């Protein structure tokens, strides 16, 4: 989240799209209701289904799964054409005035630079136009037809109200009301928030869907203000932390790219050269990366050996190491071993039947969890396997519960919060920390005598957390914060990190949470001096305890808040610095004389919010464009390009056709269960609340199928078939999509064959097809058939 949970109370309008927070993040209702009661805030719910969130919303707009770019696009077009955007904010704080490269164009669904053979883009025309001095050419009046602003208008001019409603199936009057209501937040003194979750990301165009939200919020002046922002509602208690800490193939900690086996990364110098932008805050990357290497290898990492850079693994440039890529390569027999720390692919999917088959190729599996999961038993008859034919060794290690250990987790609002140990782990279970620690100590022992150069990395790996069975977590926390190696003291924050090997730091964005003063994630102070709900001394928010990101944008180009009701920070002429309610997300001493004074988006090279995203930062376009989901019931009405033109299709033979599989399916969650189900389907109280798997279908479809609630039905497509009970509700209504009635169905994905209660796994139906940029699977908007089981 750019903002945070309590900040929701400050909003005037919440646009909830691709999320069902009153179901899956129930405490959000507390704060949105306060906004409703205390400031008359409006709640808008946009969803294929009428959800628990919709039931409390002021406006509910149905939409066909996968058409979010069209939905938001139509809002952007209406706002531009009717001049409802925040002129001053857009002109000063975005790249609206920048001129674009002469050869950039967009035509019939494709941007300039497309290679149909390789199915990828050359980004060289997706850039700004430079003058003779190499500076970006600009037109502050925004009238030049080649400004970002005019190109944006042109791009979105095709997203008319009529066309969008034909695509999404949203009734026109409702759609117009949504736009007009949310557009009011561009007024000074008003702010709107966009709340989204997996409903926005789990698509082949997911990254561009989120990009759309950012464009909309920049146009309305909603970034950097209380009650504003683009707010991701993350799914697990520490997915924010696990992402921050780089448990992804392409990131190390702090969102820095992992090195690739290519010339640009051949040595530390080349890597830093190619990865470090010349302007913007990321210009400091070398300090963070070298400090990370020092945390990896400590005193074995020196100036003379590139700080151990050549011990660090470089991934192959052409291999796909993402989750789907991993399983596809496993299916080909390319992996021997797998460790799983609290993950359950057999239920989590996608394409669970394929995943089960792929796992059989493993020689060994190590699975760590609190419960016996479906994945741990992938080789059993319950899973659909023949044990005698599965040669995989499976090691199951019992893990301790959250309150049976101590440590910190990061909420969606970036608050790093410490939790303490209440009881000893049950039985012989251990904290994951201790399990990892024991493995590390054992491996180091095994490699201690090796003289082989390839074993240098593990021998030199800095593992200074004690030699007993219990890992010294305080030392881990201190290392994450960072230490000045010349003094032995904790660094104050990442501004003290250096690229000369004098500092180590496990994760630069967390640096500051554990200075010499102590572990700030353990703070529990109740004060909220501003009344905005910032609670500056309750735990610690990264980065630097900033609670509202981009808060420079809450003040106008002279440094005065746009409106007193939405004030966060302001320029103090006497003290010659930025002051206010929150830690400035800005260099505090930059004053009106500095051209950077009006550049609030400090992580971007040009300091502006990007309406146009240059240089292929997103690989499928500098502007979002609507394409249909891979399995769609209709032709793309906006262009002749049916699907995102750069997506990788792993199994084209598995594409389900609309003739045989006419219904659009989504997977979703219920409040009473959590993710792949092990953590709730083993708890009697939760099981009592939701004991069974089902497919949710609307009354009209139920009538067509001759089905009533409780009847068994088959839900099927090219990837699998599941038999479940039908749950007939008023919540799913068919939509008129380009004149034809289309039905949608919904499937909770929490169930599997383990636990107190069991049920069919929805992810047997989901595809091996991911977002063009991130490879997140298209769990929303695939096709199925539903028919009576008898």
């Amino acid at each position: 989240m750019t903002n945070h949970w309590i900040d929701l109370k400050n909003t005037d309008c919440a646009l909830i799209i691709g999320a069902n927070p009153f179901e899956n993040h129930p405490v959000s209702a507390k704060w949105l209701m306060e906004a409703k009661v205390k400031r008359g805030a409006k709640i808008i719910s946009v969803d294929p289904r009428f959800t628990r969130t919709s039931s409390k919303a002021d406006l509910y707009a149905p939409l066909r799964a996968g058409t979010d770019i069209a939905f938001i696009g139509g809002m952007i077009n209406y706002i531009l054409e009717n001049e409802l955007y925040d002129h001053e904010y857009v002109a000063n704080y975005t790249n609206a005035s920048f001129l674009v490269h002469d050869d950039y164009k967009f035509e019939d669904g494709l941007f300039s630079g497309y290679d149909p053979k390789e199915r990828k883009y050359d980004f060289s025309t997706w850039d700004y136009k430079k003058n003779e001095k190499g500076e970006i050419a600009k037109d502050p009046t925004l009238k030049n037809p080649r400004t970002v602003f005019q190109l944006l208008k042109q791009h979105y001019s095709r997203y008319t109200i009529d066309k969008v409603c034909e695509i999404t199936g949203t009734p026109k009057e409702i759609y117009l009301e949504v736009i007009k209501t949310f557009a009011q937040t561009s007024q000074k003194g008003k702010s709107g928030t966009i709340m989204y979750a997996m409903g926005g990301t789990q698509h082949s165009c997911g990254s561009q869907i989120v990009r759309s939200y950012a464009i909309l919020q920049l146009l309305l002046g909603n970034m950097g203000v209380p009650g504003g922002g683009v707010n991701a509602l993350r799914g697990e208690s520490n997915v924010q932390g696990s992402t921050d800490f780089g448990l992804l193939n392409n990131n190390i900690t702090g969102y820095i790219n992992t090195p690739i086996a290519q010339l640009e990364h051949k040595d530390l110098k080349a890597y830093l050269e190619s990865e470090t932008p010349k302007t913007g805050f990321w210009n400091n990357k070398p300090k963070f990366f070298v400090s990370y290497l020092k945390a990896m290898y400590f005193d074995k990492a020196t100036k003379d050996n590139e700080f151990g850079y050549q011990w660090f693994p470089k991934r192959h440039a052409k291999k796909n190491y993402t989750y789907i890529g991993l399983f596809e390569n496993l299916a080909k027999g390319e992996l021997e071993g797998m460790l799983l720390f609290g993950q359950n692919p057999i239920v989590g999917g996608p394409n669970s039947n394929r995943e089960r088959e792929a796992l059989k190729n493993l020689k060994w599996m190590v699975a760590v969890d609190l419960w016996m999961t479906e994945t741990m038993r992938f080789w059993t008859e319950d899973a659909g396997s023949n044990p005698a034919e599965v040669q995989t060794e499976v090691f199951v290690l019992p893990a301790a519960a959250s309150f049976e250990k101590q440590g910190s987790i990061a909420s969606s609002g970036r608050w790093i919060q410490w939790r303490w140990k209440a009881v000893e782990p049950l039985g012989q279970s251990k904290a994951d920390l201790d399990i990892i620690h024991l493995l590390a100590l054992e491996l180091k022992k095994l490699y201690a005598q090796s003289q082989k150069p390839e074993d240098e990395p593990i021998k030199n790996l800095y593992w200074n957390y004690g030699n007993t069975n219990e890992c010294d977590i305080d030392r881990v926390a201190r290392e994450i914060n960072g230490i000045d190696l010349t003094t032995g003291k904790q660094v104050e924050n990442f501004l003290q990190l250096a690229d000369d090997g004098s500092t180590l730091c496990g994760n630069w964005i967390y640096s500051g949470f554990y200075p010499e003063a102590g572990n700030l994630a353990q703070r529990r102070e109740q004060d909220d001096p501003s009344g905005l709900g910032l609670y500056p001394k309750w735990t610690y928010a990264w980065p630097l305890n900033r609670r509202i990101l981009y808060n420079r944008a809450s003040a106008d180009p002279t440094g005065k808040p746009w409106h007193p009701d939405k004030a966060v920070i302001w320029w103090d002429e006497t003290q010659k610095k930025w002051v206010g309610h929150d830690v400035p997300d800005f260099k505090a001493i930059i004053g009106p004389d500095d051209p950077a004074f009006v550049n609030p988006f400090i992580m971007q090279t040009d300091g502006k919010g990007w309406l146009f995203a240059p240089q292929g930062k997103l690989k499928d376009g500098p502007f979002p464009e609507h394409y249909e989901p891979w399995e769609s019931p209709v032709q793309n009405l906006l262009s002749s390009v049916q699907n995102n033109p750069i997506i990788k299709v792993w199994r084209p033979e598995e594409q389900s056709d609309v003739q045989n599989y006419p219904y659009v399916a989504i997977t979703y969650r219920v409040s009473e269960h959590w993710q792949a189900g092990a953590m709730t389907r083993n708890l009697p109280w939760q099981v009592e609340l939701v004991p069974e798997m089902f497919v949710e279908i609307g009354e009209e479809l139920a009538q067509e199928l001759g089905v009533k609630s409780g009847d068994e039905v088959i839900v099927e497509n090219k990837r699998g078939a599941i038999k479940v009970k039908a749950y007939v509700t008023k919540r799913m209504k068919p939509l008129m999509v380009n004149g034809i009635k289309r039905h949608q169905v919904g499937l909770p994905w929490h169930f599997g064959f383990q636990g107190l209660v069991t049920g069919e796994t929805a992810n047997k139906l989901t595809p091996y097809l991911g977002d063009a940029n991130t490879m997140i699977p298209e769990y929303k908007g695939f096709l199925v058939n539903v028919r009576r089981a008898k």
Partner: protein
Amino acid sequence: MAITRRDFLKLSALSTAVLMTAELGLDSSKAYAQAQKYRIKTAKKTPTLCPFCSAGCGMLAYTDTKTGELLYVVGDPDHPVNRGGACSKGASIYQIRNIAPGNPNPKRLTKPLYRAPGSREFKEVTWDWAIAEIAKRIKETRDKTFIKSEEGIPVMRTDQIACLGGAALDNEETYLLQKLMRGLGVVYIEHQARL
């Protein structure tokens, strides 16, 4: 002094104090004074956080100081985000450990297990054995499949080991996991964030 929601919840945790408020009117200071006499003397409260969604709601785990056993888990009235509230999942955290007082949840894994190739079942093993054997497997696979360099560039990786998980791990755990895996040269590192 009017009673705040936070105070009410704190008093509620002191069981019979709730009855006191009715008698003494809604004046929390008086109720507190009375409640001291009735406080559960052997309960210790430990602040923790809910392990489910990303709201980061505060929870309090009450344990019996004599036996160390978990008594119950409730919302933390001092936490600014949830102010003592909990959804159904948060309200069930207690059952992750005990389904009733003195009755641990039988579904919890409490011992390391091993399944041999082709076998139909798991057998119980010791931690020492499990850690030693797992480390041997990792080393064997790594050594056999390690790639030192490609086209003159040191790559120092193995493409045959994968590490999945986990979004419910603590920050310190995620940090050490990526550290160990990268120390071994593992590059197939993925988890729920990409799903």
